[in-house]
């Protein structure tokens, strides 16, 4: 199944909050394999999570 970047971005957000279904997971990874923009956004979402952790741990 071919998904859009918009749908991929929604799934990349949701994968941080719940387990994706097998169908969703395979569709997302098929998309990521061919989409550089979405790969960048996925990394950015991961950075956001780390950034919030850094915020509560405080500056070093």
């Amino acid at each position, binding site marked *: 199944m071919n998904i*859009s970047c918009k749908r991929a971005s929604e799934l990349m*957000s949701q994968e941080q909050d719940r387990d994706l279904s097998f169908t969703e997971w395979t569709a997302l990874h098929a998309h990521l394999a061919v989409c550089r923009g979405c790969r960048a956004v996925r990394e950015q979402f991961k950075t*956001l999570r780390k950034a919030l952790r850094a915020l509560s741990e405080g500056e070093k």
Partner: protein
Amino acid sequence: MAAVHDFRGQVEALRPYLVRYASLTLRNRDAAEDAVQETLLAALSAEGRFEGRSNLRTWLTGILKHKCVDAVRRASREAPLAGEDAETAGEDFEALFDDREHWREHPSPWENPDGALEQKQFLRALEMCLAGLPARTAQVFMLREHAGLETPEICKELGITASHCWVLLYRARMALRLCLEKNWFAK
């Protein structure tokens, strides 16, 4: 006695920091001050349990997270945040996508994100971006990422559905990535 006084002083010194964080979650200065006050009282009465554990700031932040969750629970019971959904409904980042829902402009990787996390100024920029989120979106995001709650707990506390929760978290992440890109990574 000097040690007791010292502990109290150290705890008090962290008050402004705690108020900032409570404000980001609660979006209400009075509620934030109350949560911090409860945190400081709890900390002072539990000093013995702090001995030798993590650092003071991390410990206080841990207590504060619980107080914020309590405050959100109370507030959403007393007065659900009405009208907020309309506030954000139109803002679905449509402009970023073309008519086939692909990126109009392909996002590029951020340069040295891990290095940014080490910098005070980056964390200030992040706080600024968080403060710019609509209230309910920010609340859900802070409960998820700052307090570390799972989405079912957030839904329960705020009385919203899981899918609504995911939509708000998505909006928060999309808005924050745009805000950080503009205010930090574009430099």
